[in-house]
């Protein structure tokens, strides 16, 4: 039984004013095993990010279903799906999307804000997440006091604080230089080595070469 199963997923954006109907994904079938590192590659506009947000329980597919750990995520209510995102997924955005007014420790701790847990435990877990991505000693820095690579690491720390079984990453090295990008990839590889499943969208062939498997997508279809 695959850990992540994408079954016949189609996504169509309905016509809106002058915008015509757009078919972004067509009958996408993907299966990923637990602790696998898979890269999704494809040209711009091929539907990579859309597929990632669908797997990320944020974007309802027009057809088909997505099963994570045998849970049909779009059969869940909106609020249960939010819980699912918190408990099962760690999402790393291309632009990192850090909160500029929170320091690194607080940014890493953000997914725990709604958790019934005492503050000391939250802080310990955040400090541990920062240590895992190599940000020891930078807990009190604001995001704008961190380099691009450190911001990327902080975004990963936030994604892993809940120890999610599945990490989704949308071009996490896209805005970074080669050296920093390689450092970030190193972090993902370490996490994967510790048993976390990684599903990453990337343009970078060097990065994708480090994955267990590469899936290509062109015009919304798996190639």
């Amino acid at each position, binding site marked *: 039984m695959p850990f992540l199963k994408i079954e016949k997923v189609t996504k169509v954006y309905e016509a809106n004013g002058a915008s015509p109907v757009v078919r972004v994904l067509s009958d996408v079938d993907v299966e990923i095993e637990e602790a696998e590192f898979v890269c999704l590659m494809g040209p711009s506009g091929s539907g990579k990010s859309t597929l990632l947000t669908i797997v990320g329980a944020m974007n309802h597919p027009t057809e088909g279903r997505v099963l994570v750990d045998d849970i049909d995520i779009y059969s869940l209510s909106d609020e249960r799906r939010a819980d699912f995102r918190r408990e099962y997924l760690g999402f790393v955005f291309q632009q990192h999307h850090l909160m500029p007014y929170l320091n690194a420790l607080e940014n890493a701790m953000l997914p725990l*804000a709604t958790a019934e847990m005492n503050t000391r435990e939250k802080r310990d877990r955040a400090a541990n997440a920062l240590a895992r991505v190599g940000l020891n000693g930078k807990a009190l820095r604001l995001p704008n006091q961190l380099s691009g690579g450190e911001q990327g690491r902080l975004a990963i720390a*936030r994604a892993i604080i809940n120890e999610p079984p599945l990490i989704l990453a949308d071009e996490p090295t896209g805005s970074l230089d080669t050296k920093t990008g390689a450092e970030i990839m190193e972090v993902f590889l370490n996490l994967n080595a510790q048993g976390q499943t990684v599903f990453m969208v990337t343009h970078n062939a060097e990065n994708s070469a480090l994955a267990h498997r590469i899936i290509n997508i062109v015009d919304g279809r798996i190639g």
Partner: protein
Amino acid sequence: MRISTLAFANLRRRKGKAVFLIIGIAIGIGTGVALLSLSTSIKEEIGSQLDRFGANIVVVPQSNSLSLDYGGLSVSSVSFDVKQLRTEDAASVLQIPYANRISNISPKLLGAVRVEGREVLLAGVDFDSELVLKRWWQVAGKKPENDQQVLVGYEAARALSLIEPTSSTQPPHVSHGGSHQHDENQFQFKIVRNHLTIADQDHEIAGVISQTGGPEDQMIFGSLGHVQRLLNKPGQLSLIEVSALCKDCPIGDIVSQISEQIPHAKVSAIQQSVRARSETVGRLTRFSAAVSAVVLVIGALMIFTTMTGSVIERTKEIGVLRAIGFRRAHIIKGLLIEVSVIGLLGGLLGWGVGLLASWMALPYFSETRIPFELKPVLGIVAMAAGLIIGSISSFYPIVRASRLDPSEAVRYV
């Protein structure tokens, strides 16, 4: 870290906007508080002045009488089983539980007397209380100071040839003092006689009451005890006029209490006076409420637009929070905490500013200098109002924020 930590961090981050919103709510609440405080003080003053301006309760002997008139022709009424009012009854009015609301008691004895061949209505009054009650009287002369001095109504004075018309350029004939004494040049008459024979006794004319259009024009007023002796009705009264300070207007309760105190009397509220007071005060209240409502609506619209702008500005942030597992309820809770803090602080500031403004403005609207009062209950109401206005006006933007599609929101730039 909790949701409240995020909310407070956001407030600190957007200090300028938070202060702007707090000031906006404070202006709305402050205007309401100031208008409410002002109108309450002015209402009390107007009420007190109206209450002092004439009686609003009249006490007469209880009798089973039938009014006999037909087509404007009045026939003597048939009275039987009349229970007399006594001088002690006037004093007993002050023994009712609402005695502190009684501002004036004016006992009277009325009787017809022959004055130089004419029948004239003679009223025995306590001049101290009567002249306070009849503030609109303009007396050419002075207040009577002894039993032999009287005040004469305009028509009675004219009929008894006590006065003569005069032009404004002519100086008046008399020069008296007294609390109701007015600039003598304003009277269109001059007093030509200083003495009058009433019931075969010589009386000095202390003053003539300028024309009022009321029953007093036809009357002569003497001191109560003296008139009781003249009419041979010692200790008796015809009526007692009572002026009650009608704050919160328990006029019905005051009437009931006087009725219980003087069971042999018929006590009635003068409805016209009560209605006029309540209409005046009511208009003032409605005006204040309308102005406050308009200001609060403007404040609420300002919060609505600012909160809507704030939500749009934070679309990406809210999308990220949703993407990492915040429920809609968590987003709503966070934004509500922010709005509540703003609303409470706005209400608190508005309360302080409103009280201060009303205290500073009151001398321009009122003759009474009212001491500064903190009114903590009003403070609680103001904070609650700030909370409610903040919550209601940001309800739509907050719900809209919670419904943001996280996948769209994180792509938002």
